[in-house]
């Protein structure tokens, strides 16, 4: 677990990309991690079903914030229908190995919120699908 906190994770935690709010979002969602109360909100701006812009906001641990930040970088230019299909493996590839089971929900929170925004209702936990 201590190997997990690599420099790029800490960099995303301390300097989150696409952090903030959009004045006009086409779709958005937010959720809490029931374990620790981490919060994430994701907003997407679309053009013809393709993600033009994204912002996320929230608070929480390095794992939840860094994985949300990395996801936000990925989804720009993606079709919304593809965003809805993202799986837990995407996050695990982003953040690298070493997530312990007790911290899996932290890593998956951003993806769950992103997928919720894409499908217009609360998505399942990606690690439970």
């Amino acid at each position: 677990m201590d190997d997990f906190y690599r420099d790029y994770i800490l960099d995303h935690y301390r300097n989150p990309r696409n952090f903030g709010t959009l004045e006009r979002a086409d779709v958005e969602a937010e959720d809490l991690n029931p374990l620790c109360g981490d919060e994430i909100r994701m907003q997407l701006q679309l053009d013809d079903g393709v993600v033009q812009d994204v912002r996320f906001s929230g608070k929480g641990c390095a794992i939840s914030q860094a994985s949300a930040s990395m996801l936000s970088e990925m989804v720009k230019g993606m079709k919304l229908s593809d965003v809805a299909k993202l799986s837990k493996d995407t996050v695990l590839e982003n953040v690298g190995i070493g997530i312990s089971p007790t911290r899996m929900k932290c890593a998956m929170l951003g993806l769950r919120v992103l997928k919720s925004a894409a499908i217009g209702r609360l998505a399942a936990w990606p690690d439970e699908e």
Partner: protein
Amino acid sequence: MIHQALSSRAESRDEARAARSAESKVQRIIADFPILARPTSRGKRLVYLDSAATSQKPRCVIDALVEYYEQYNANIHRGVYEIAARATDEYERARVKVARFVGADPSEIVWVRNTTEAINLIAYSWGAQHLRAGDAILLTELEHHSDLVPWQRLAERSGAHLRFLPVDDRGIHVLDDLDALLDACKLVALGHVSNTLGTIAPISTIVSRAHAAGAIVVVDGAQGAPHLPLDVHALDADFYAFSGHKMLGPTGIGALYGKKALLETMPPFFSGGDMIRRVRYESTVFNDPPRRFEAGTGNIADAIAFGTAVEYLEKVGMTWVREHERSLTAYALERLGEFEGRGLAIYGPRDPDRISGVISFNFADIHAHDLASILDTEGVCVRAGHHCTMPLMEKMGWSATARASFYIYNTPADVDVLCTGLEKAASVFNR
């Protein structure tokens, strides 16, 4: 002069001897807990600093569970055969032990699953009977969700409203407006010890002023009974609820102390077998307390082992327990204080006399969950999060804290390992 030097040397010899004997007592206690001899998967010594969540169990408690299932497993209060008689006897003997431990009469001890169930029992039984629209229920800002949500629900059902005794920014109760808060108040519920900050509540003051105002007092003793010498009659609270698993006992068993005169007037919470005296198709005469509140087959093995747990604590001595935890907390505050210049924030009262074995903290910009994960790699178990006190966290402006909590088997060496873990966290996070 010479005489003085000799006597001071003798004193320091006495002190050294006392310290050595205290240390060997803790070592003997540690040897009673099988789990503390098991290394973690990383080969680290288990440094268990989460006893506020649940305590570890000594060998004698584990043995008591096995003994019941292996030697006299039978239902209670009905069988006429030998092992049923023994089961009933041990179950009721456990009630006597738990009653003695808190200074109550056995007829005043109701078995419950845990503190939460005890508080719900009071809310549904006494609360439904007495609370009406316009009445007030007084809680404090420190309450655990288990001593908040049942009262919110009672308020919804009865039309009563909730009030909160404030705490200051160190989590110490502010009593300035207590009498005004007690106006039209029927019930006061408060934790003996805060599970988040360790604050010991001024129970006696609150009880006497609540009684003067005509309110009853319910004490959530989940963090009190395991750690502080207790005499519920002297405390004079009307109800005192506690859980076995936080005081060396098994999970799934707890006790509610209630004043006999109150219990006798209260309707049942759950109903069914064992809580009755006579049942007809149309109506039932209920049993006397405490069995009136114990419907269905109880948690027999766990109740018996809970009795063993409090016997163990009595043998250790609750005055010793309090002093051990007080001095350990003082040492931990001192050691953690060394990190304050590097961004460590310690919450709650800083005076070891006002706290009972709980310290909440945050370290620089390292989120409490990340900190707990890194400490875990060193074998250190701490809790991170909101500690089931979300309103308090919001009031204080903390999204999460890390919490170390101590019990009889912890030592200054455990605090030192915690500090080593903090050094590691600082290095992982490049602080």
